[in-house]
């Protein structure tokens, strides 16, 4: 096996796992900001309980976002040293800005938010969550700037075989960026909304004690999902124009694609310049899922007089639909990334040139090791998420008052 294939498989595995967690992070934090703001403004204890319950799930989910994110960052240097060598002057800048401007502060704020319950003033505590959310969006933005540059390199000139930055503004107005950023952010909101609605539906189906609480979060989740799916569809279809223009080989075999391929053949030599078919197949399924999820709008009228809860079967529908947005985001990501092949930077740097010159055994060990590690952690994390979601909002560890009798660490029966 060649190292190129191994390095690509590793990138696909790490990115996919990372993406499954970060969309939840981004979606949930937005809803959490709303809930905690409502708590601070109204003083209604219901909002505090909602913030603690969903905040706990958010924080558990965040763990894998960080763990996989760190691996992602190192992977560029470990497996793709050609990327930093040839285009690092341009591609490295948005990534560096992301770590300094966004992630550094996001995690610092989150640490203070988790431990700031009952210790910081309410306003300061709320401001920290706002900080977490804003830096999370900033993070998504800069990552998309970096990714869009790989899709459509702009604002650079090549001297001595190495790309140098000439116009940073061009990176921010990249035609491949705007609609894609909107698409990803609304997909995150969709995932967050669907997850919130589904967990609430499960509690309502089981008739657990917190009816009022989960009724509220069901409504918030559904309305968010409905608004988000429309935005997802809008931004998604709006991408076809600009992306088709700057990446003619991505979606089709038209005359423009043929012209580009002829140009590449003269500049880089003959080769297979069409992306694998996997990209467009995935895209088709993603669009199908997108239309299916559009049916969320049909459920909204049932919110009237809680018909959605009384009828019960809509709750089951929501519960069963929860894997769909996750599958869709992965397929969408595959369409974007695999559709860029065989380039790592489209039309500038072939993927084969970017891979690190390390031996096959090292690359294979790395692929197996990190995939097993991150895969195991991801499954463990989902199990923990499911357990905490199922446990309900009675007493989440997050935000538990310090004076309260300790958590039931030793559940000893009073009378054995």
């Amino acid at each position, binding site marked *: 096996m060649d190292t190129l294939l191994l390095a690509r498989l590793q990138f696909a595995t790490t990115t996919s796992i990372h993406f499954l967690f970060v969309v939840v992070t981004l979606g949930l934090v937005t809803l959490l900001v709303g809930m905690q703001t409502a708590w601070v403004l109204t003083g209604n204890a219901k909002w505090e309980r909602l913030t603690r319950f969903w905040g706990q799930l958010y924080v*558990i989910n965040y763990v894998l976002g960080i763990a996989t994110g760190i*691996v992602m960052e*190192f992977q560029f240097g470990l497996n793709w*040293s*050609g990327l930093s060598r040839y285009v690092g002057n341009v591609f490295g800048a948005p990534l560096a800005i992301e770590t300094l401007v966004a992630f550094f502060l996001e995690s610092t704020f989150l640490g203070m938010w988790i431990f*700031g319950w009952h210790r910081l003033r309410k306003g300061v505590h709320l401001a920290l969550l706002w900080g977490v959310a804003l830096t999370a969006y900033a993070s998504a933005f800069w990552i998309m700037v970096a990714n869009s540059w790989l899709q459509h390199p702009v604002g650079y000139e090549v001297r001595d075989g190495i790309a140098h930055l000439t116009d940073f503004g061009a990176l921010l107005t990249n035609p491949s960026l705007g609609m894609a950023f909107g698409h990803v952010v609304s997909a995150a909101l969709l995932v967050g909304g669907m997850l919130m609605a589904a967990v609430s539906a499960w509690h309502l189906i089981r008739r657990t004690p917190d009816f009022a609480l989960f009724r509220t979060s069901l409504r918030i989740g559904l309305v968010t999902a409905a608004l988000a799916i429309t935005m997802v569809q809008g931004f998604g279809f709006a991408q076809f124009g600009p992306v088709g223009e700057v990446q003619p080989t991505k979606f089709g075999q038209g005359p423009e694609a043929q012209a580009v391929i002829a140009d590449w053949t003269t500049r880089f030599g003959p080769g297979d310049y069409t992306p694998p078919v996997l990209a467009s197949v995935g895209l088709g399924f993603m669009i199908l899922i997108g239309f299916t999820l559009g049916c969320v709008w049909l459920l909204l009228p049932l919110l009237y007089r809680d018909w959605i809860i009384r009828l019960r079967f809509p709750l089951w529908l929501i519960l069963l639909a929860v894997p769909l947005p996750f599958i869709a985001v992965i397929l969408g990501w595959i369409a974007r990334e695999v559709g860029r092949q065989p380039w790592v930077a489209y039309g500038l740097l072939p993927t084969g040139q970017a891979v690190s010159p390390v031996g096959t055994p090292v690359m294979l060990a790395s692929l197996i090791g990190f995939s097993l590690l991150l895969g195991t952690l991801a499954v463990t994390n989902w199990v*923990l998420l499911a357990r905490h979601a199922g446990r309900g909002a009675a007493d989440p560890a997050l935000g538990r008052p310090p004076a309260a009798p300790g958590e039931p660490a030793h559940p000893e029966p009073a009378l054995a």
Partner: protein
Amino acid sequence: MDLAWYALLGLFFASYLVLAGYDYGVGLLLARGGAPAGRRAALTALGPFFLGNEVWLVAAVGILFGAFPVLEGELLAGCYPAVAGALVGVVLVTAGVQLRSRPGDERVRARWDRVIVVGSALAALGWGVVLAALLQGVPRQADGHVAGVSHLATPFAATAGLTMVALVAVHGATFLTLRLPADAADAAGRAARRLVPVALCAVVVATVVGVLSSRVRDAVGRPAVAVLLPVLLVVALLAARAALARRRPGWALIATGAAMALPVALVGAALWPYVLVSTTDPGASLTVADAAASTPTLRLLGWVALPLLPALLGFQAMCWWVFRGRTDGRAPVYW
């Protein structure tokens, strides 16, 4: 401008070792076992600082990628096993600390604690080996790539890795002496004082092995610095021991923190103006200036990052200030 960015890279990586160093130290000390309440108290002492500590690593690698792209590719790929080992350690610690208390069962929590111990050891060992690899030079070829990974397997790299583990353990125990409630802090202080001689031995052995290694002697361009800084490291450890004996854990933590940062300064200063010294082809050695990104990139990063630096430091300082002092019954428990 290269020098400023190189210094900033050093500052961020050293800060990572100083701050996350005590996370890993506390993690290593979980290996002592003990009552579940004691292990949880140690993690509660890390509490709010934990998430803000590892961000320094992410930011350091961000600076490495943005400001020194060539170095990023060659260093990480050229030291693949060491970097990957450290990375596995970092991932295990970050997941272990944050998830260990989510299950209620104490046996499951004890298993997670073992994960944290292994992760902490791997992270310290890995970064120690990476720093040693820089100091002993790498087989960088004329084509700019580092050949193979067997250059890592030297006695110097092994002793340097183990030294980092010992330093981290001292640092973690000192941190616990400062943070734990007064009654538990005494035991942590005794552990820290017992660990100082171990770390001293490790530093001395690593220094001697380094001096005896012809690769290290050839790679180091400034031998005076390379001898002075290990001496400072020994002084810092002795100062920490003295401060612990006088029940001044704050000063002791400053001293062990200095001991964590000094290896980074050592590598930066002893190799200057080079950053990757080639052991096979002197012409293939990489200077800091050659490794740096071109001027427009550095200027852009300067405009974006420098105004922000006070905010980054300010919010970190806010975290330290808000949660200063010993943990007590009122401290929020989450990890």
